[in-house]
């Protein structure tokens, strides 16, 4: 296992401690509950936004705490939803008069933990709503299964509800924009290598030197199919071919285009993919109004990428353009 790690069981706490030490003025870290929150939260002028999920997707979600984004994040162990207790404790700590919006990527474990936490918070008289994010088109939607997964598109939901909550909107209104953004967001990913959870110590799956996993999940879940590795051009065709018809995105649409790295792919390759995707979309008459290239939602050190499209209207575009700042800053 080629990782910087001490005791693998302490991987998440040690990462969180690093975040706290790098942001002493703006962040509070509560080790008992694995919780990272804005030091100025809660504010009774705004709905508090909370997201939690398994760890291993950084910067999501512990590194996107800050003004205009999350008020708190409650991570679980690597790839495991946080215990319901942690979520409940987080909701309590950031509870404001305007309420708490819980953002949940749609996975069984996360749903259960957040449902239980919401019940407990509600019983305490906290105004709480839960929004499920499910942007991954790789997994076919179906009533008898667990529905689609939430992946990198969660960034846009966080950004939108974060901006709306900063405006002082009430919880129903914040929920409404989040739900709206989720409904027009579509993502699909591809893996070139597997990833290794620190506590497991071995890769979650094996990919041959010339293979790729199309539609991979961000927890190393297998995707639609395993295929021979092809050119960047053909990969973009495959991803856009799944994403574009799904909403569908059509000629004349204004979109945000994100190329997200899964952890092990250098940003040079992400920009290369971005250029290819941008040209293909433009050729279809789809206008790219906002661009996002980098790591937003990763899968440990997996080499791979996902493409996300968001269909914009004036309201969404304004929310995405609103100022925000996070733990994981550049300068």
């Amino acid at each position, binding site marked *: 296992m080629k990782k910087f790690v001490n005791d693998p*069981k302490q991987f998440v706490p040690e990462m969180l401690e690093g975040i706290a030490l790098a942001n002493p003025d703006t962040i509070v870290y509560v080790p008992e509950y694995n919780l990272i929150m804005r030091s100025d939260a809660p504010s009774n002028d705004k709905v508090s936004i909370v997201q939690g999920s*398994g760890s291993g997707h950084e910067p999501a979600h512990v590194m996107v705490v800050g003004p205009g984004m999350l008020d708190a994040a409650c991570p*679980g*162990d*690597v*790839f*495991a*939803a*946080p*215990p*319901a*207790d*942690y979520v409940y404790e987080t909701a309590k700590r950031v509870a404001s008069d305007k309420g708490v919006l819980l953002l949940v990527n749609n*996975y*069984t*474990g996360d749903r*259960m*933990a957040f449902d*239980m936490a919401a019940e407990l918070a509600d019983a305490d008289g906290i105004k709480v709503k839960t929004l499920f994010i499910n942007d991954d088109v*790789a*997994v*076919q939607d179906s009533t*008898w*299964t*667990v529905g689609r*997964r939430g992946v990198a598109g969660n960034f846009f939901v966080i950004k939108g509800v974060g901006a709306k909550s900063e405006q002082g909107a009430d919880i129903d209104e914040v929920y409404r924009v989040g739900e709206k953004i989720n409904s027009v967001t579509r993502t699909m990913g591809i893996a070139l290598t597997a990833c290794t*959870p620190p*506590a*497991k110590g071995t890769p*979650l*799956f094996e990919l041959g030197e010339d293979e790729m996993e199309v539609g991979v*999940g961000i*927890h*190393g*879940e*297998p995707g639609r199919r395993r295929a021979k590795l092809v050119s960047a051009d053909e990969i973009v065709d495959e991803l856009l071919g799944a994403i574009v018809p799904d909403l569908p995105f059509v000629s004349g649409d204004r979109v945000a285009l994100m190329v997200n790295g899964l952890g092990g792919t250098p940003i040079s390759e992400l920009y290369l993919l971005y250029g290819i995707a941008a040209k293909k979309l433009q050729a279809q008459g789809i206008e790219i109004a906002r661009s996002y290239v980098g790591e937003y939602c990763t899968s440990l050190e997996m080499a791979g990428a996902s493409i996300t499209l968001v269909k914009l209207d004036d309201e969404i575009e304004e929310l995405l353009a609103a100022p925000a700042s996070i733990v994981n800053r550049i300068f």
Partner: protein
Amino acid sequence: MSGTLADTEFVVRQISETILANETYFGELDAVVGDGDFGYSLARGFEIVVDQWDSFDRTDPGVFLQKVAMTISSRIGGTSGPIWGTAFLRTGGQLKGNETFDGADLVRALRAAVEGIKARGGAELGEKTLLDSLVPAIDTLEAELAKGSSRAEIVKAMAVTARETADATANLQAMRGRAAYTGERSIGSVDAGATAIAVLLEALAATWPE
């Protein structure tokens, strides 16, 4: 049959030790079409159970189980935290208030755990989850009680059922949990949770003091 606090402690201890001993194996089972953390998640919860063993309220078997439930709920994340936490909590809730329990009490308590798991995770039998070996094992418990079998015989029979039904999950397509995302590709490998139930019952059968 009749069960005591000591029996309950024995079972919980046995379950805890077996989970700790099988951390890697359970993780590997989950890695096939899941994300490989099932063993880790369970182990992190049950190692605290072992750590805090002497501190649990032992008013009666039910209270003891509820305290264990709260400990594992507060530490186990993922799908397993809510599922296993709910199961222990419901079992304890049914047994609470009496110093001992009989076979019928136990069946009722375990059926309550199953209902709790279903309510929490929305799964039904046949959807390739731990229910697919747990429910048949409880059916076997009920049948063996009706036959008047000894406790050791009952546990052995439950283990056999759990193993058979756990192995049979290989034929199922996963409809719940992360494995569900793989669709037909989940067919061909056993469910991690269902197999864990078999392993736990086999370990119980092998160490049962009679």
